[in-house]
């Protein structure tokens, strides 16, 4: 990450053509995810949310920066830590929270749950729970758009631990072999559940795994929404114009446990505090203030708005009905 204030008097995003409005919306998306997830943790503690619940806190810049670079007709796949990407794609906090509460008003009508958010109308293809299981699907959707002569791209978020799975390598091989317009974003938060990546992976750099397939590849600071956006723009351009896939390692960090049931004994408090100093939301806020994109007053207003939005989401979820019993047998077959 470059430090600001080099020789130029322009912000470091000056070359990206980002309007103030777009910058503000990227910031707002990150803040909404942070507050949504904090509230999810509370509601989980109250027993309103069941099962597994994997929070995106700390990784907001990765999802928001990547999704901000997409078009509406592009497709998104992700693993089970999917709340953040769904919100970044414009799925409403109300419907997302209702899904966590297992209510019929949820994004998957309460049938999917925390790990299975979907909105086909927004190209949000989910929300998948088997580590390394969904990257082939993402390559398949990229295959379909190319087959049909479209110039959509498909992006695939996946955890760093999934890159040890065999099927991920099968997918990387075919994606490059067949020149599929797909971008694999490996969110490297350092831990596959409680196992540090260094204890699970031979080799040093995650993105080296794509080297054997001669795929375009690299690492990016996933704690920086602008860096993320910039690298994604390049990858998207390659995919859209030349059908070239990319393997992008986004180096990020999750502040909370793997899931809500994680005691977190595999890492130190100091390590977590160190990352919090590089918090993607705080650092971006400082920059936006510095360049006059936002004022302190506007930030405070936004904080209030989001607080209300999340509160209303919880009230909506709470007040919504559970799925009717007849839904048990619906949608098994088309």
């Amino acid at each position, binding site marked *: 990450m470059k430090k600001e204030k080099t020789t130029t008097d322009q912000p470091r995003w000056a070359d990206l053509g980002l309007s103030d409005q777009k910058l503000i919306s990227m910031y707002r998306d990150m803040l909404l995810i942070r507050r949504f997830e904090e509230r999810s943790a509370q509601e989980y503690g109250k027993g309103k949310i069941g099962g597994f619940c994997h929070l995106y806190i700390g990784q907001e810049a990765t999802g928001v920066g990547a999704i901000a670079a997409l078009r509406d007709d592009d497709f998104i796949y992700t693993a089970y830590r999917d709340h953040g990407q769904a919100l970044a794609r414009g799925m409403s906090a109300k419907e997302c929270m209702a899904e966590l509460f297992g209510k019929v008003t949820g994004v998957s009508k309460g049938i*999917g749950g925390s790990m299975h958010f979907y909105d086909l109308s927004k190209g949000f293809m989910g929300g998948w729970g088997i580590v390394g*299981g969904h990257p082939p699907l993402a*390559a398949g959707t990229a*295959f379909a758009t190319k087959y049909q002569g479209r110039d959509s791209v498909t992006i695939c978020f996946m955890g760093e631990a999934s890159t040890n799975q065999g099927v991920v390598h099968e997918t990387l091989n*075919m994606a490059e072999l067949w020149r599929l317009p797909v971008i694999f974003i490996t969110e490297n938060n350092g831990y596959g559940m409680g196992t540090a990546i260094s204890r699970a992976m031979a080799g040093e750099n995650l993105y080296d795994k794509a080297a054997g397939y001669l795929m375009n590849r690299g690492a990016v600071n996933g704690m920086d929404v602008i860096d993320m956006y910039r690298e994604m723009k390049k990858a998207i351009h390659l995919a859209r114009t030349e059908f070239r896939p990319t393997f992008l390692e986004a180096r990020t960090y999750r502040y909370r446990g793997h899931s809500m049931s994680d005691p977190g004994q595999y890492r130190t408090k100091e390590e977590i505090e160190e990352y919090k100093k590089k918090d993607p939301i705080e650092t971006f806020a400082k920059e936006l203030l510095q360049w006059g994109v936002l004022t302190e007053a506007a930030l405070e207003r936004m904080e209030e708005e989001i607080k209300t939005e999340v509160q209303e989401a919880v009230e909506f979820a709470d007040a919504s009905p559970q799925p009717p019993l007849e839904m048990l047998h619906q949608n098994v077959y088309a």
Partner: protein
Amino acid sequence: MAILQIREAINQAIAEEMDRDPGVFIMGEEVAQYNGAYKVTQGLWKKYGDKRVIDTPITEAGFAGIGIGAAMAGIGVRPIVEMMTWNFAILAFDQIINHAAKARYMSAGQFKVPIVFRGPNGPAHMLGAQHSQALESMMAHVPGLIVMTPSTPYDAKGMLKSAIRDDNPVIFMESELMYGQKGEVPDGEYLIPVGKGDIKREGTDVTIIAWTKMVAVALKAAAELEKEGISAEVLDPRTLRPLDEELIIASVKKTNRAVIVEDSWPFASVGTEIAHRIHTIAFDHLDAPVEKINGADVPMPYAENLEHEAMPSPEKVIAAVKRVLYR
């Protein structure tokens, strides 16, 4: 009316559907330039080219998943994924069971998954344990999947065309030993709907239920039994999920006796489910408990004599029929 091999009937079905719908394509190991490991896709690559007839690396899970993701995009793509054999498709079960079968349900109906996974299933001849197993019961166990198992060229063509047009993931299980089997296939277009069984031979004394390769075994047994004055009906469910329960129950109500023949292992098999349904739905019509003839409950041995011993045979079916007839 042409006389075709099953492989030719399947080939025709694929070609007709590819002509009808440009969104249909086929991918798999050796399907293109090699013309198919069992020559099912003979000539398709030449006719349709690289775009629609695609050789894959030997990575069953990977290309199964690519097919699923292509089908899920909802932009008119209908993949046919050939598995060189279902033995190898076991590598892709995570993709089929955890992804294809569940995408629609988990998304509360947002996705359709119009895809066919097809290839030979069941023991062939002296291939040893890893290449000789009937896996239809494992697939039929899974809600969200359709499982079809043709036994004649006529059925194979009409069933596969329906499978390709279906908006659900279809598991289409053929038989290596049957690809050369010949039969009449009409010249014009026809479809055999999903979920419809067929009476392969009418009879009055006992219903023998069998699919794919076991239909021939059942028919052979029925011909022998006829010599002894026993009239056996042979029923082929054709689709195992959803099961044509109506046809099965109607036949058993007529004959009052049933024998199920399958070359899969016996434990928790499709035959077990059929027997259960007959016992619970048609209990009052039964004159004897339902009998089940299976492959032996062992991994398949290589030695010819042991392999023969492990497989259902007309003799074993005849003995079972006589047991339910108390003769």
